[in-house]
């Protein structure tokens, strides 16, 4: 992980860049309520992976997240972070080692951007020079100009800038785990997509273990390495990588929650580079051009708007890689075997020879 060198060199306060997280039979019962808010929830998040908690309101997804940093105390069960139980830690010390981003962000209005980012390092007693270096580094990491931004107050920022500062603040002390509660929920759709992409790029660099809460299944599929779908009453309905969730929903609840368009969502996880394109075989390529990195779903949309005409797929150097047609896409979806084969191949580390090359999950999000 050479990309994380900067984060690691600054974060020398004694903990690893990422830590595995495990929830063991976690139950939360509020006094005076007959049914638990979280019911026997068990899941493991490997170090450096994004686990999305998703579900309808009342499913306890935010509660489950807040149990991890002990904003809420669990009733029974255990939560293991980096090998030791969070229950053995002092809550405030534990929280300093867990990045925390909430929907309203909660920047401190009376502090400048730089002071906001310095919050946890100050609590940890870093010296001033180190904090200043770290704060500038993080501003750059989230795509903000330190010179221009560090002295501003939150009231002087746009919604997107506030969100970025919120993420920088959560990352400041290089926590091994990040908790994000609908972090993009209050952002307009266009900026939300941009922030999601930015976060995925950022995550590819810092490789934190992330628990991400959302009610939006599309966001879950885009952001998650694994998705935990919770149903009402805090019961885990299914915990699986996005591709598996879409191809093999565990029950009707999951199928309904991921939506009737789960076929299209699967196409969105696959790029044209992952499928066997039709070779033009000497025919002059015609029709609209589409980059190899596009998702099959986008390609399908372009074919449909072009009245069903095939598209020419081109790589980064504008060389023709092949053609994509309506029939090809229909074949991927219709005969269930083709796309599932690719997805299985990706999961089992197989060769993906049965219709599409592997790594659909990875390929779909590396753009």
């Amino acid at each position, binding site marked *: 992980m050479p990309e994380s060198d900067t984060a690691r060199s600054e974060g020398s306060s004694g903990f690893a860049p990422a830590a595995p997280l495990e929830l063991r039979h976690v139950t939360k019962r509020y006094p005076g309520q007959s049914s638990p808010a979280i019911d026997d929830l068990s899941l493991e998040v490997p170090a450096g992976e994004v686990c999305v908690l998703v579900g309808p309101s009342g499913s306890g997804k935010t509660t489950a997240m807040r149990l991890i*940093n002990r*904003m809420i105390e669990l009733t029974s069960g255990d939560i293991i972070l980096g090998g030791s139980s969070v229950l053995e830690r002092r809550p*405030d*010390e*534990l*929280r*300093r*080692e867990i990045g*925390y981003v*909430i*929907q*309203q*962000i*909660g*920047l*401190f*209005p*009376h*502090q*400048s951007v730089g002071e906001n980012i310095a*919050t*946890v390092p100050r*609590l940890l007693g870093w010296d001033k020079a180190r904090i200043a270096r770290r704060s500038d580094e993080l501003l750059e990491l989230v795509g903000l100009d330190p010179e221009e931004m560090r002295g*501003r*107050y939150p*009231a*002087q*920022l*746009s919604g997107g800038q506030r969100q970025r500062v919120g993420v920088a*603040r*959560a990352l400041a002390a290089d926590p091994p785990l990040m*908790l994000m509660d609908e972090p993009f929920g209050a952002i307009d759709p266009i900026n939300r997509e941009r922030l999601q992409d930015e976060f995925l790029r950022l995550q590819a660099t810092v490789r934190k273990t992330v628990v991400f809460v959302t009610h939006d299944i599309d966001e879950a599929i885009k952001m998650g390495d694994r998705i935990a779908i919770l149903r009402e009453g805090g019961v885990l309905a299914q915990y699986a990588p996005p591709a598996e969730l879409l191809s093999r929903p565990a029950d009707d609840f999951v199928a309904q929650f991921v939506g009737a368009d789960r076929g299209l969502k699967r196409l969105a996880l696959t790029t044209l580079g992952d499928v066997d394109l039709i070779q033009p075989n000497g025919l002059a390529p015609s029709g609209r051009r589409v980059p190899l990195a596009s998702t099959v779903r986008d390609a399908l949309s372009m074919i449909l708007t072009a009245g069903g005409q095939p598209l020419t797929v081109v790589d980064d150097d504008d060389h023709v890689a092949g053609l994509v047609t309506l029939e090809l896409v229909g074949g991927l979806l219709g005969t269930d075997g083709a796309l599932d084969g690719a997805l299985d191949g990706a999961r089992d580390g197989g060769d993906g020879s049965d219709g599409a090359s592997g790594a659909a999950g990875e390929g779909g999000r590396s753009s």
Partner: protein
Amino acid sequence: MIVLASAGPVIPVFGGAPSSYACERANRLFCPDWVSQNWSNVLWPALRQHVVLSVVAVVIGFVIAFALALLAYRRRAVERPIILISGILYTIPSLALFEILVPIKALGLSVRTAEVALVSYTLLILFRNIVTGLRNVPDDVREAARGMGMTARQSLWRVELPLALPSIIAGVRIATVTVIALGTVASYICDQGLGVPIFQAIQDGVFKTELIVAGGLAVALALFADGLLVLLQRALTPWSRARAR
């Protein structure tokens, strides 16, 4: 006889230098000469006493109200009783309150009595503003402070109190102006402050210069203190004026 008898006592005797005699005798409302001759021996000491009287009252009132407000912020149950008691203190007419306090042995006709009364008028204003300021801190900010690992004390001193400052200082401004105004009444029992020349003028009946000057000084002092507190707030809360660019 009647003319002499009525003219005699109404001419004030103190500080009556010959040069201002004509003015006083003419019984005009305002005699500049009287002001310049009595500034250093009457007005300036009264003003200084008044400043001390007010500052002491506001500081003591703030310390008590601050402690009570923190208590009420943590334990909501005590908020109503505190508001009730300080509200009763606030509504007692000031002269009546002085009369109630004077018979108390430890107080009597002293500055202490005046201060107790003045402090009691600041409590409700200061308490309410401090509690309101703290309660108005946005929930997401409090949540973020806790979620990042601040202890309750760190969150209070580093986040919640700074954000409550505009409301707290607004309370101090009202309390200060109130105390400066009421402080003139305090002279009734303790012979201190700008109330002294005012009461003197009321007793004298006709000569109004000292009443006007002392009253004017009280108003000027209130405005000056208020302005000073505005400047203090600006210095302490630069963020409150930051707006989107």
